[in-house]
């Protein structure tokens, strides 16, 4: 069923549920791990989105930075989730804003750390004679 009525509220199924969120500021997480915050301008039945005044928020630990990205057309299948943001509410987890250069440096260090841990893990698996299936969460195209 495409439309369900619960307590006099109307709920649409699938991507149609986002029609009420047009022109709202939303947080969109992509499957490659990127987080975008933007105004949703339009969408279609495949979930393709038009995001306006988008910025990419990179969070490493408690530190974050916003990189302005402008106008986006995102193919629907690459979206992980979409959430509504309320900028008037204070952040429950206090985040510290840093400069873009700083966060990119932190991100690089973070990736190197993770790769190092992954290498050690793989080595340990082989030494113990176990089959390594890799990290199932990461997307490989």
């Amino acid at each position, binding site marked *: 069923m495409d439309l369900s009525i619960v307590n006099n509220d109307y709920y649409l199924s699938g991507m149609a549920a986002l029609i009420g969120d047009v022109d709202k500021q939303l947080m969109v997480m992509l499957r490659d791990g990127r987080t975008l915050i933007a105004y949703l301008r339009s969408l279609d039945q495949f979930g393709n989105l038009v995001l306006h005044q988008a910025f990419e928020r990179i969070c490493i630990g408690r530190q974050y930075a916003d990189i302005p990205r402008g106008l986006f057309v995102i193919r629907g299948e690459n979206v992980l989730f979409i959430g509504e943001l309320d900028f008037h509410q204070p952040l429950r987890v206090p985040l510290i804003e840093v400069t873009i250069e700083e966060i990119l440096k932190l991100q690089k260090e973070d990736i190197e750390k993770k790769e190092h841990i992954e290498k050690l893990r793989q080595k340990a698996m082989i030494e113990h004679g176990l089959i390594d299936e890799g990290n199932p969460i990461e997307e490989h*195209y």
Partner: protein
Amino acid sequence: MLPLTLLRTAVYHPMLVELKNGETYNGHLISCDNFMNIHLRDVICTSRDGDRFWKIPECYIRGNTIKYLRLPEDVLGLVKEDTNEKPTRSGPPTRRPFRGRGDGGRGGHGGRSAGSGGDHRKGGGGGGRGGHQGSRGGGRGGQQGGQLRQGR
């Protein structure tokens, strides 16, 4: 306007296309279709790590390999101009599906009050209270009709 409509208006504009494998293609859009297949010209392709570059005069990208497209902001303004030229027609959001039901409800409740005539107001009001918003209006109308009849 739909995402694909925005893409169609962005023809001849420069854009950045990131594919699912992380490669980025910077070029001018020549054409696109409903599957999001795109034809670009004067393209600069950057590898996923950002360390290798290729210059490609023309390329065709299959829609299902695209992750996202980044367009210049002025394209949004262009689309608004295009939609103003088209004749305005009320879309699905303005259509109220329960207006018809409300009218039917009003007529139905009016009929009930006429039948009861000198009967209490409560009967018509009770019938109107139950149901959707449209019928609520109809019930109110029925109530008023009952009052008028009693006055006479």
